């Protein structure tokens, strides 16, 4: 009789543990989604600043400004991959200009903004990866037996992670 109780208790504890664990991951996924949003917003806010402060120095570099403005548009349209590609292109070009222009380098304003921009790009990358990792972790947990049965009882659906559009998949970022 005691054995049955013990087995029952262990089973109940296992179910509770499983449920709480998955709920925790779901909350973390929610938080990292929010983090992605935060960083995108910060990036979108930084771009006009950079453009404004660099305008005087970079009259002839129209292309960079077009790239940055397009990147900002892509951010508001939620095309993350596209915007990051444009930003890294613009950052590369800006870097070359700053290196060859001592006056610009000395002012520090443009370089500071560039550093901030690179940082948001990194943060965005890490936030997205965290979310992908968490989703993968979640999905791995709900497909293995006996968790798969519990998952269907509690109606835990596989997490999609980040949805990547076709366009994004065909335009991978080339990192040098």
């Amino acid at each position, binding site marked *: 009789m005691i054995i049955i109780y013990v087995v029952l208790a262990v089973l109940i504890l296992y179910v509770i543990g499983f449920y709480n664990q998955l709920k925790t991951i779901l909350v*973390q996924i929610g938080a990292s989604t929010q*983090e992605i949003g935060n960083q995108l917003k910060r990036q979108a806010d930084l771009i006009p600043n950079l453009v404004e402060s660099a305008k005087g120095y970079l009259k002839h570099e129209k292309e960079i400004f077009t790239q940055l403005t397009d990147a900002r548009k892509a951010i508001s349209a939620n095309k993350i991959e596209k915007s990051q590609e444009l930003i890294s292109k613009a950052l590369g070009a800006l870097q070359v200009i700053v290196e060859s222009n001592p006056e610009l380098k000395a002012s520090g304003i443009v370089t500071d903004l560039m*550093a901030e921009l*690179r*940082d948001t790009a*990194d*943060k965005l990358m*890490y*936030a997205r*990866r*965290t979310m992908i990792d968490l989703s993968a972790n979640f999905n791995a947990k709900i497909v293995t037996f006996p968790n798969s049965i519990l998952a269907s009882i509690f109606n835990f659906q596989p997490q999609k992670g980040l949805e990547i559009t076709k366009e994004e998949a065909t335009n991978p970022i080339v990192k040098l």
Partner: protein
Amino acid sequence: MISFYEQIQRNKIRSSLIVSIFIVFVISAAYLISYALNLSNGFLFFAFVFALISSFVSYYYGDQIVLTLNQAIPANRKKYFNFYTVTENLSLANQTPMPKIYVIESEAMNAFATGRDPEHAVVCATTGLLKKLNRTQLEGVIAHELSHVKNYDIRLMMIVSILIGTISILTNMATRSMFFGGNRRRNNDDNGELGVLLSILGIIMMIFAPLIAKLIQMAISRRREFLADASAVKLTRQPSGLIQALEIISKDPNILKSASPATASLYINNPSSLFSTHPPIIDRIKALKEMI
């Protein structure tokens, strides 16, 4: 090509194997030494408690002691932008709280992590390191340090040092009681050959145990370094950053003078060579290149 997941898994298995061997070794060494010299259990107990207390002090106050000894100052976001933001970003990916970050004014290139758990972690880098590495390389180094934090290496090394402390206190006391104490008569002389054999083993242990213990400690520490390297790649997904950083650090002529042996195991690179806590940089780079 071995993925970092496999590397991490393999390192975890190997280090738990080494730790178990170590515990078995310490227990049998302690037993043999007390058998050979007919020491009472009190000695063993005393040695253990003493080692425990001293390790706990270093566990709770070690980070403060190290930072003070090295004259480390807190790093702010404005002055050390890359260091600050890289740590911030990697903590996000590591899913640990952002550690306190400090810098040491020194031309030498080094970094270390300390603190007993992720909530009390401290990451410290020299100004030389921050100056000579670019952002990607710095990411590799910081990811390595944050991996030490997440893998609870500081806690592991504390357990190891408690065991080592026990052995060295025990052998110390045993040596002393051999020369001065020797007044208790062995009452199990009738054990015959086995008793003699155990006694001889005990004496041998007394001489070699501290050395062997030290060697095993180094083995554990090196294993944790490889693990931290692999975990760092899991964080950054860019082995090249850490590889380049290690190459630059190994070619750098400046050596951090105040690198204390107490924390040597947590430095990115350990300047001392004989009983090195770190694997050779060439081997580390080789392991990292397998992950590309």
